[in-house]
């Protein structure tokens, strides 16, 4: 069966859906008679050069222009009681939020990408319209249900994930809440979609470009100030029923792209002095605990605090991908941060980071690792001072181990002048690096930056940053970007 063309997957008519929904919501806002509309427009322009690796070493000149439009329509429902100006949050409320981005990259590239990646990077380089998120949200509807409909994020112990669909959260008695989600995973093939949060792994094959349905559910503690706990499940189907790349009869059966169960916990004991937390994700598709992080924050005194963390991860891919077969060893990371605020203006911090990279014997290849558990360590020191018109932060850092060594420091400063309307930034970064695989890949880089952030008027800000770079590769390399932000709110109707 021939592969589906990508253009067939989401119907062209779906492009009208946001317009129809938008018009309906605008009508709803006008009907509500006192909704608040907030519009944010941000224009970002950037230009930079990079040196193409290799003996040719061509200097590539690149530019990017992006335009964001964020929209929020709030308080669609009027107050319940006549003496209220705004509806009590516990009485329920409706709102709409959306973020649209238009992006275009210009500039030089050393060569084109190979197929099938060429199809993918065409979207990265060329004109791109992304609906980053856009949904209508009902909060405390009926006093017990939160509902979202549209493109939305899930940010939890399961994943950082974006989908088109619906989610419902029901507040139940006994401090419990039950949630359920359903919809379609957003990827580069969706209407105004983008690939960033698409499960990694396969690419370029037709199934990767087709829509993938998903469902999920969770149960969590609700409204307990000292404890949060959630157990959640999610399954995403690979669109195998399309039959695009099932190579034979054995390809039948349920085709799952992702299947996870997660548990996350956070507690605050002893008046928030001791706060343990943790999140674990079990990948049912590979039968591995592929993401575990746990830690504790100990506020020793109001000005001294210690945070310790342990992370254990295995790279995860969609279950269509053979990369899952190779990813077998966890990567472990231990981090400890001590911070003290000796005065209201000063903050000092010390950080340790230790990393462990396991290697198992690959018996069939008769391969013994040079070390079963190589260690890479490092850390950093930082100091921050924040005065009325001047703020600065200094950092020193170093980290070795797998990949190589990086040692360096940076200083950031910001000075307010002209009634705090103008912020002047100055920044310097210097680092030395050494690649562990190839001794020839070592060097330094120094970056000097200057920036301005101008508060032009209420809700109108202009920002500009210029950077000069000095490395063995560049005698100098200039980079600049600027952004103009307009944040504007108005009420539709009177109340």
């Amino acid at each position, binding site marked *: 069966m021939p592969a589906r063309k990508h253009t067939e997957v989401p119907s062209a008519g779906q492009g009208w859906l946001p317009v129809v929904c938008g018009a309906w919501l605008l009508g709803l806002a006008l009907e509500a008679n006192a909704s608040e509309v907030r519009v944010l427009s941000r224009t970002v322009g950037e230009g930079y050069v990079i040196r193409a690796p290799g003996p040719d070493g061509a200097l590539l000149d690149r530019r990017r222009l992006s335009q964001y439009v964020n929209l929020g329509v709030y308080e669609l429902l009027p107050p319940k009681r006549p003496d209220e100006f705004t509806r009590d949050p516990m009485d329920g409320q409706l709102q709409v939020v959306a973020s649209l981005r238009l992006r275009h990259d210009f500039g030089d590239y050393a060569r084109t990408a190979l197929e099938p990646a060429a199809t993918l990077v065409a979207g990265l380089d060329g004109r791109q319209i992304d609906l980053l998120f856009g949904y209508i949200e009902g909060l405390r509807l009926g006093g017990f249900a939160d509902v979202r409909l549209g493109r939305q994020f899930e940010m939890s112990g399961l994943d950082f994930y974006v989908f088109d669909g619906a989610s419902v959260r029901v507040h139940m008695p006994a401090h419990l809440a039950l949630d359920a989600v359903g919809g379609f995973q957003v990827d580069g093939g969706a209407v105004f979609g983008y690939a960033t949060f698409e499960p990694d792994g396969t690419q370029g094959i037709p199934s990767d470009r087709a829509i993938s349905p998903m469902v999920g559910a969770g149960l969590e503690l609700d409204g307990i100030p000292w404890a949060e706990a959630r157990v959640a499940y999610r399954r995403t189907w690979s669109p195998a029923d399309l039959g695009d790349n099932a190579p034979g009869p054995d390809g039948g059966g349920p085709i799952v792209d992702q299947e996870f169960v997660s548990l996350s916990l956070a507690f605050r004991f002893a008046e928030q002095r001791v706060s343990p937390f943790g999140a674990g994700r079990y990948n049912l598709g590979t039968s591995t605990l592929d993401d575990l992080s746990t830690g504790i924050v100990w506020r020793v005194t109001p000005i001294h605090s210690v945070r310790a963390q342990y992370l254990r991860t295995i790279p995860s891919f969609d279950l269509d991908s053979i990369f899952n077969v190779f990813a077998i060893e966890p990567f472990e990371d231990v981090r400890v941060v001590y911070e003290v605020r000796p005065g209201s203006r000063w903050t000092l911090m010390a950080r340790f980071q230790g990393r462990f990279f396991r290697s198992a014997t690959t018996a069939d290849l008769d391969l013994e690792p040079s070390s079963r558990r190589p260690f*890479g360590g490092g850390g950093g020191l930082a100091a921050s001072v924040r005065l009325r018109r001047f703020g600065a932060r200094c950092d020193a850092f170093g980290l070795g181990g797998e990949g190589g060594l990086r040692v360096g420091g940076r200083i950031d400063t910001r000075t307010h002048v002209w009634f705090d309307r103008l912020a002047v930034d100055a920044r310097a970064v210097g680092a030395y690096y050494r690649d562990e695989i190839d001794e020839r890949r070592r060097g330094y880089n120094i970056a000097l930056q200057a920036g301005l952030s101008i508060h032009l008027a209420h809700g109108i800000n202009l920002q500009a940053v210029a950077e000069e770079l000095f490395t063995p590769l560049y005698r100098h390399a200039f980079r600049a970007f600027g952004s103009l932000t307009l944040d504007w709110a108005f009420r539709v109707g009177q109340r």
Partner: protein
Amino acid sequence: MKRTSTEWANGRRFGGLGVTLFFLILFVAGTGRSAPRTRPGGDAMGRSPTRVGGGNAARERGELPTTAAVMHGPTRAGTAVYPEQSIPLRFNHGEHLGLGLRCLDCHESVGKSRQVADNNFPRGETCDRCHGDAHPNRAAANVVRCDLCHTQVEGQSRVTGSLRSPKPLLHFNHELHAKAGSNCEDCHGDMTKVRLATTLQLPREAQCLVCHDGVAETSRCGACHPTERGGRLVTRAIDDRSMPTLVPKGTSAWGIGHDLAFVEDHASVTKANPALCNTCHAEPFCLECHEGVVRPLRIHDADYVTTHALDARGRVQDCQSCHRTQSFCLGCHERLGFGDRDEGPFAVGGGSRFHPDDWSGPAGSPQGHAHAAQRNIAACSSCHREDSCLACHATIEAPIPGLGANPHGTGFRDSAKCLALEQRNRRVCLRCHAPGAPELDCR
């Protein structure tokens, strides 16, 4: 990402245009109706008019996550909840209480106060009851020494300093709390040992949570902290970029104290407790870095294009949290000449080959790539597609034949991983194995 020019020509462009037009129409529709700068009073709970969207409320600062200075820039004294006060007075609460005065004798209006914006300081006339007739204008025959109470005085009788007490960034209703049975000292502490009261005598969050425990009283953040229209907490009182920001730290850290390394380490905290993050941060905040168009220089500083390979191989940060390796990374690498190309300096036979000589080769030759792939194949997938692996690891009978180099190791067919994959997605097995092959079944 995967659209073609044909799609645009077929009308998808029109849908995008429609949405853009919709936003523009909405933008223009409101030009004549700006949000009111203030609105009268608060509601029954004493929620003040301070909300984002109100005329003078905090707005987007327009800062991109480019420099650390944004987060560690200049700031006024005080906190976001209790801004810095200036009280140019001499006063001794302990002395006055010792004389038998009660709080309400001086703070007369506090019993009826419903908002934090109310001025509950004693007026001069109240002091005059005991200290003589000096306010607002002293009696002609009365010799008054203003400097007995006022600290900023010219001569003895010209006061040059005035009290400045910006309203706290809180909802608070004194009347409601008094009716519920709270005494002044429940929140303000023992004032018999206090001279001039400052923000130190204002209640800390821990004191509030004694009653607001989610059982006796609500523990909802928005019950006390002003919220934006969307329900998230207001983190700055007014549109002043030097105002302190409401940040979890110290005694109100909630287990997510934003220390100086929080940007680097926030992922695990976020996974454990995303609801708490959502209390203040909306989607655009996360997306500015995770799906941004300008790199956050705190994470990717200086010549990161050259040095990023070190971080990627060591998983110093989780690249996949912002970059999809099989599109973003691979696409860029291919255009620069890395990957599985046959030609160019980075190709297998090229002089600038990325991997060392013992990285891979025919059976029997050193296979240094194996251990790197075991622990961080995400780095491999930033340059290689699955076809790179299949070229050797696919079986000879596979639809696209390989060399049959078995990557599974011993015991794979008995493993839970084999069973899990078999039950959920056999399609992946068929990339390397021929349909019907006996080794396809787990034991």
